[in-house]
């Protein structure tokens, strides 16, 4: 990928995906935890698919075990897309 992926772009995309999955639009934020958003393992698999589609970044379910907030996912995507 030639264009740089910014944290703002990724955050907006991830938050939009989570809202599509049914998370409360008023609650989603960079610092929100999956528990607060009622996001479960099935949502995270779908989120990984969205991220791979959009940024060509693979996040495995093992990676996901260490990613506890929206911000953690955003940071990993930005790092791996660089």
């Amino acid at each position, binding site marked *: 990928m030639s264009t740089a992926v910014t944290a703002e772009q990724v955050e907006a995309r991830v938050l939009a995906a989570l809202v*599509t*999955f*049914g*998370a409360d639009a008023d609650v989603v934020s960079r610092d929100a935890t999956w528990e607060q958003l*009622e996001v479960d393992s*099935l949502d995270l698999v*779908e989120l990984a*698919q969205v991220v791979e589609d959009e940024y060509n970044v693979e996040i495995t379910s093992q990676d996901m075990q260490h990613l506890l907030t929206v911000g953690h996912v955003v940071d990993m995507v930005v790092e791996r897309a660089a």
Partner: protein
Amino acid sequence: MSRAVAITGVGAVSPLGVGARTLHERWTAGRSGIEDGLGRASEFDPLSVLTAKEARRADRCTQLALAASDEALADAGWDGDRPYDPDRVGAIIGTGIGGITTLVTNQDVLRERGPTKVAPLGIPLMMANAPAGAVSMRHDLRGPSYGTVSACSAGAHAIGTAMRMIQSGEADAVVCGGAESALVDLSIASFAALEASSPIGISRPFDALRDGFVMGEGAGVLVLENAELAKQRGARVLGELIGYAATSDAHHLTAPHPDGEGAVRAILLALRDAGIAPEDVDYVNAHGTSTPLNDLAETNALKRALGQHAYEIPVSSTKSAIGHLLGAAGAVEAVATLLALRDRVAPPTINYEHPDEACDLDYVPNTARPLAVSGDAPVAISNSFGFGGHNAVLALRGVAA
């Protein structure tokens, strides 16, 4: 197996609208829910009962089951404190095909975008036990839960299975029924290729010009309780499930036995299970699909099972008004039958215009009429017959006047 089984709540979503009473009132008024040759539950909005997340986690067949289960539990007075230990309550929901909308959508993704793009929700949404699992989870029902899978008799098998669970003492109550949403090109094309569905798109059971069924979607759910326990808790009882039987034709993949042999046995065994005689039956809710084969075989079966009495009682088909709901049919029709008994009305077979010499029972053509009741409380049987040769018959009794 002596325990009596009370029906304390019902719910339905059908092409005639949302709600069991809506189904009953509109059918009795002779209205049709079929448009352009299909029976869509077009008044159903999943987001009126489910959150966005819940709706996304459920194929439409499961969404319909959840809506009908909410209604049935509220109708039974279970929407506040639960009357039973959740470990003693089961959930048995049948379906003919399951989440086929999910299946075909994911098949398209697989073909067009490859295996890594297929949704993780594909399997859990399409599996045929998804409606049962979802109903169990939604209402915290922790007794036995599973789906029954027997094509167009799945809903009736679910109710019969639930009845047996209560009679055996395995459960104090069971939330049971059927759900189907298969109005996708694949099933429409396959039923058309089988020449099972109506090319002209009219559901007219027992009419001489009938040319096949009209596919519909929906769900029906009943709350069954051990009648003794229902009485103890002061439940309002809508009626009783007094008999059930299931048999098999062992004859052909799709065609009924021409003499209705398996159907006759199912009817007679259901009457025996209920401890009643043919003369005690006041109303027959027919399977009545509007296919040339079924309606003839079913008419013959009713005559063989009930004798002369078959000519003396109303026999009508809910499918004339809503089409064929496949795995939901037996459940939606059990709900419709129970409410007909409750109001003591024989709902009509609509679109009936051309009598067929070979189908010569009283099909209640086009207009409902008061139901003549021979005993203290009205009794009906509801027939369901499925591809595969599965026959299931329920016997229901309304409350005494």
